[in-house]
């Protein structure tokens, strides 16, 4: 499991570099401007802190094949006190689960 930062969506704001508890994300200048980059995909803990900070949902979360991953991507879209977790499967089927952050877990 790890993250993938989509360069076309990244606006280079650097918020993810502050959110990562492992100092794993840095900003790098490239041909299309300043973009966030993960140093080493294998070092990601999978906490999703960076995804919650990203203002443009540029960070996708995926399960490595060693965890049973089959190519799906999960992203977070924030809306007020809601988190919409979108899962897009490799066959393009989509599932969305909405979390109301003002509600507690049932378990």
């Amino acid at each position, binding site marked *: *499991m*790890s993250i993938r930062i989509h360069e076309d969506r990244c606006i280079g704001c650097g918020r993810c570099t*502050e*959110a*990562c*508890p*492992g*100092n794993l994300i*840095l900003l790098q200048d490239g041909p299309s401007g300043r973009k966030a980059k993960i*140093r080493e*995909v*294998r*070092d*990601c*803990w*999978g*906490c*999703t*802190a960076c995804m919650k900070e990203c203002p443009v949902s540029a960070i996708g*979360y*995926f*399960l*490595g*094949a*060693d*965890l*049973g*991953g*089959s190519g*799906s991507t*999960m992203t977070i879209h924030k809306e007020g006190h809601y*988190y919409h*977790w979108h*899962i897009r*499967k490799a066959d393009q089927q989509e*599932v969305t*689960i909405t*979390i109301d*952050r*003002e*509600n*507690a*877990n*049932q*378990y």
Partner: protein
Amino acid sequence: MKNVKLKRSRLETDVLIIGGGTAGCYAAIKLGAEKELRVLVAEKANIERSGCLAAGVNALNAYISNGHTPADYVEYARKDAEGIIRDDLMMTIAESVNEVTEDLERRGLVILKDESGNYVTRGWRNVKINGENIKPLLAKGVREQNNVTVLNHVNITDLKVTDGTVHGAWGFSVRDLTAYDIEARAVLIATGGAAGLYRPNNPGFSRHKMWYPPFNTGAGYAMGIRAGAEMTTLEHRFIALRCKDTIAPTGTIAQGVGAKQVNARGEIYETKYGLTTPQRIFGTVEENRKGNGPCYLDTRHITAEQQGNLYHAYLNMAPAQTLKWIESGKGPKEQPVEVEGTEPYVVGGHTASGFWVDTKRETTVHGLFAAGDVAGGAPQKYVTGALAEGEIAAEALAGYLVAGRDKEALGDRREDAPAWTDYEAYLSHEPGNLTAEQLEEAMQKVMDEYAGGIHTDYRYNKSRLELADEQIKHLESLLPQLAADGPYELLKIYELRERLTVCRALIAHLLARRETRWHTFGENADYPEQSPEGCCYINSRWENGSFHIYRRPLVKGGHYEHTHP
């Protein structure tokens, strides 16, 4: 050869807090009331999401309700730890967990309540929450304190200690070429426990998909050990029972929807082995050894609504598990959840491992206090217990400074060689064949095979442990060959150095406990039973190049003050 020179930054403070996680942040918040004290929090990432709570937490596991008392909580912890707890420490935690829970709610944490406004509990010591944003709430509380300064992205490596008294620490920026020399009248260490000592469940691409944060390296233990602090019960390792592959929590399923542990033959096995944490894992290991695996939590009885609630609950703390269910097209209603034990960790919030402290959380190094997972003697702290210890330590630190106890041992401070000479050496080396990553893998392999990792079903014996010690010592001797290309690479070298120190101390402790006190956590093949002589704390101190072991009698209640061993 390069000749890298770091910019020097010298800072002075009254209290230095090393590590801005759960306990460190809460101590900083509480020290906010001591307006005349300057407080500095040094954190290697950013306190916003650093430490154990980055992803959130599903529940508060230490809250006393339904007619129970703090003494009941102490008894629960004692039973789970087979007697090896510090009554004084456990009681001070148990007396505070409800108050800190209410404070968390005031800070904005969502806690489930019933119609009459009471917390909804799971059993008698657990409240249901939405803990996804618990760390940002704590970070906000820290930023609100005018006397607290936060130094994010600074990694502390060594304590400054003269004649048994701490007076600051050395560190470096993980972002630019700056070395820090911090002078402090007192220090609180709150760096958390140690993950990544053993080869993990998923050693390849998902090597960091582990229970405990892979960024918690045991830095505090390592600094304390090198400074000559007494450590306790490191051999009480923690191994979690987790959902296979994703290493997501199982308590949410076991207690949340009443799933039983079953083997591949469909037999409920949990009743055969018992329901304490180590027994649940021991049962799973034993069933696998007998050829009855894989083992599962049987969730097939749940309703569609319960399944939906599980998806929500896991998104708030371990999103990989929800993704796995959705991606595979089979939720827990259709298939049972396979479970496995993790690699062993050293973590004082779950077991009794860590600094040997007095009731006020002062370590055996004068002026050095410890709280949270780095402090020993008090297992089953969980989040609220770590907060409680942060508060207890903050109060003690303030008392220590107001009484001027830091001045007692002043005298002439010898300045040892500054740590930056080592930092600069690593930054100046030309890279050789060895890398920090290689040595980390080698360390994890040694620990897995010779010090009771997953590979041997957590079993070890004296011969294996002695080999482990020899090989870890050898890996330590290779550290000077490593080269750092920049500050982040320097961080990786120091994290490795910390883990190697913790491994050596852990091996010394495993050798010293000549019994099997806790199944799985300390499965000693030479001594497979409990022994009456094991009813004591195994403590250690690094002196003149080796670990000295002390066996201390159990502390029953009251107030504990340090005595020389």
